[in-house]
């Protein structure tokens, strides 16, 4: 087993991986950019090294700096987390060439699945259905138009090298095609260093269902059931659950078999996720395979009882798979939601800032994977994901009620977050009924605005807090003496001075 694992990531996932390392008796090592010197993922590490300036290109995407840090800190393996270099085959190869173990699949498997067009061809040859798509635009704008017409609008533009919504655009008419294509290309180039795009047939109200795979180095492979991630905004998941809200045993069997076939087609090892689009008619198509740990892995951990990060480390160390497919029966239901620094009332624009107050929910069946802390500045340079709240219940409705209560308990003050919006989704009758699809938010919550139902109570709380706090803390010792309730000399409200 490894002695020291370098975690080539930041935020909540780096904190989560560090925990798994500690539980296995392995020392977690952190890397950080100049913007992350005091970030939570640095605080939980045994040792840490600075790998460059704030810009992720110069730090968390800087392969040489990360390998140098691994050597300096004495790592014998590297866990890439998700995002950044997690699906970069060159990185996986360089880690191996440096005599270290990459905790993930082989560089060849990453490369095969990382090129979305190549991946489609490979899994299609293995008998897995794929979404109708066109990927050759050698003829420039004319070829693009022909391709779009051939598929029929609406079409979806996707980045050949990417995922996570970056470089993705839905195009509903030929008039929008050129602009969308150019913008998606720029975004793909900035995010992945590869501007290549492809066009895909776009389905109405599909569901996003993915299958968790775990494979060892000795040709053994199991699936850990499915996750449904249909609740998305900006093509990014915000609520995920396992099992899927509604899925027949027959379709589940076909999906999981297809997922294993897709993974086997690239001789996959370690943890991975095969994503499918499931149409209203019950057809399903391979979308892509994520050759890494998934953001939403906690819901699978809840219902399967398998610690996926520990499992990744163990199979990377060469341990034969200890799980038996027949014994892997999901227990209960889990739902996760992503807490973002973003403003749902302003098209979900990122809203980084200072966390003035943080209260995380607690209780049975409640888990918080957090990358933030009180009195912490959320950097503007990275993804606005702050934390993930996941809950478990004996059935979906129990889990949903628990999620709502936990979200109401969650307090992140100082910047806009999506917490109130997540409550609105969880409370929606369509979500309660399991009528989930990827257009859920645009269909049910378009134009959502935060409520003002408790505005009077908030005003009352602020007013009495000001006087109570002024009474307990001498103004000279008040750290943030900016409150007008405290700084205006002997001024008191309502005294008619």
């Amino acid at each position, binding site marked *: 087993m490894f002695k020291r694992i370098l975690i080539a990531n930041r935020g909540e996932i780096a904190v989560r991986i560090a925990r798994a390392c500690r539980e296995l008796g392995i020392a977690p090592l952190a890397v950080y950019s100049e913007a992350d010197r005091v970030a939570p993922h640095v605080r939980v590490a045994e040792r840490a090294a600075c790998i460059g300036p704030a810009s992720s290109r110069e730090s968390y995407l800087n392969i040489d700096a990360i390998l140098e840090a691994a050597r300096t800190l004495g790592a014998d393996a590297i866990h890439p987390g998700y995002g950044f270099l997690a699906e970069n085959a060159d990185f996986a190869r360089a880690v191996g060439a440096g005599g270290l173990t990459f905790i993930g699949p082989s560089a060849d498997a990453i490369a095969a699945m990382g090129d979305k067009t190549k991946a489609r061809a490979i899994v299609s040859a293995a008998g897995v259905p794929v979404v109708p798509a066109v990927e050759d635009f050698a003829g420039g704008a004319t070829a693009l138009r022909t391709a779009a017409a051939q598929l029929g609008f609406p079409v979806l533009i996707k980045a050949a090298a990417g995922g996570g919504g970056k470089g993705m655009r839905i195009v509903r008419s030929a008039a929008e095609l050129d602009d969308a294509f150019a*913008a998606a290309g720029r975004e793909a180039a900035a995010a992945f260093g590869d501007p290549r795009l492809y066009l895909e047939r776009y389905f109405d109200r599909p569901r996003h269902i993915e299958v968790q795979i775990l494979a060892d180095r000795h040709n053994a492979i199991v699936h850990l059931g499915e996750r449904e991630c249909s609740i998305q905004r900006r093509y990014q998941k915000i609520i995920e659950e396992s099992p899927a809200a509604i899925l027949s045993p027959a379709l589940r069997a076909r999906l999981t078999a297809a997922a294993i076939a897709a993974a086997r087609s690239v001789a996959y090892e370690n943890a991975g996720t095969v994503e499918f689009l499931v149409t209203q008619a019950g057809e399903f198509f391979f979308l892509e395979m994520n050759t890494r740990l998934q953001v939403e892995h906690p819901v699978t951990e809840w219902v399967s009882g398998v610690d996926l990060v520990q499992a990744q480390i163990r199979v990377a160390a060469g341990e034969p798979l200890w799980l038996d497919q027949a014994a892997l029966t999901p227990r209960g239901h889990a739902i996760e939601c992503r807490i973002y620094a973003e403003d749902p009332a302003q098209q979900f624009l990122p809203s980084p800032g200072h966390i003035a107050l943080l209260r995380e929910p607690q209780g049975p069946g409640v888990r918080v994977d957090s990358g933030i802390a009180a009195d912490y500045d959320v950097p503007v340079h990275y993804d606005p994901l702050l934390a993930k709240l996941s809950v478990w219940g004996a059935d979906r409705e129990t889990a949903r009620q628990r999620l709502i209560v936990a979200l109401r308990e*969650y307090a992140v003050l100082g910047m806009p977050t999506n917490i109130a919006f997540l409550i609105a989704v969880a409370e929606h009758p369509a979500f309660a009924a399991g009528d989930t699809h990827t257009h859920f938010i645009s269909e049910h919550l378009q134009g959502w605005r935060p409520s003002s139902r408790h505005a009077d109570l*908030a005003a009352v709380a602020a007013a009495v807090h000001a006087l109570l706090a002024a009474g307990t803390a001498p103004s000279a010792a008040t750290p943030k003496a900016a409150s007008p309730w405290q700084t205006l000399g002997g001024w008191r409200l309502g005294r008619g001075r």
Partner: protein
Amino acid sequence: MQRAYRIGARRLTLAVQRAAADRFTVSVDGTPTEVEATLIDPSTVRIIVDGVAHTLPVVGVAGTYHVAIAGEAYVLTPEATGATAAEHSSVLAVPQIVAPMPGKVLQVLVQPGQQVAAGDGLLILEAMKMEHRIVAEAPATVHAVHVEAGQMVDAGTVLVELEYKDGTRS
């Protein structure tokens, strides 16, 4: 004396009178409420209003109050007390083309003097790895452009000034 605050789009006035150590009369927009209140820790108050107890996180940052209630975050921003309601509404009515978040100007799509229609792109801002298209909300003439491609901007930075068809300037 009372103070004026804004919560979202709403402007309200607030006055407090302390009757006893833990008893207050708080008037919101002139309507008084009797409140029993205790400070549990420096950023938590327990208040009892109409017999119902609420334990609420409250934090003050530079004169602005943030209160969390059942998963919702309320922000009370102080307003200058001298301004009249009319002045306030006129200030709020003028749309401003400011950076909605810190980020990098990727591309400026307009020039001074140019006519734009509602929904036309003014510039593209990149923040947190995503591109955001900033658009005109109404037909207008571009009066001035204050940023250039490649420039980093803070939230609230004025990016573009527009002159709307009705003569108002952003």
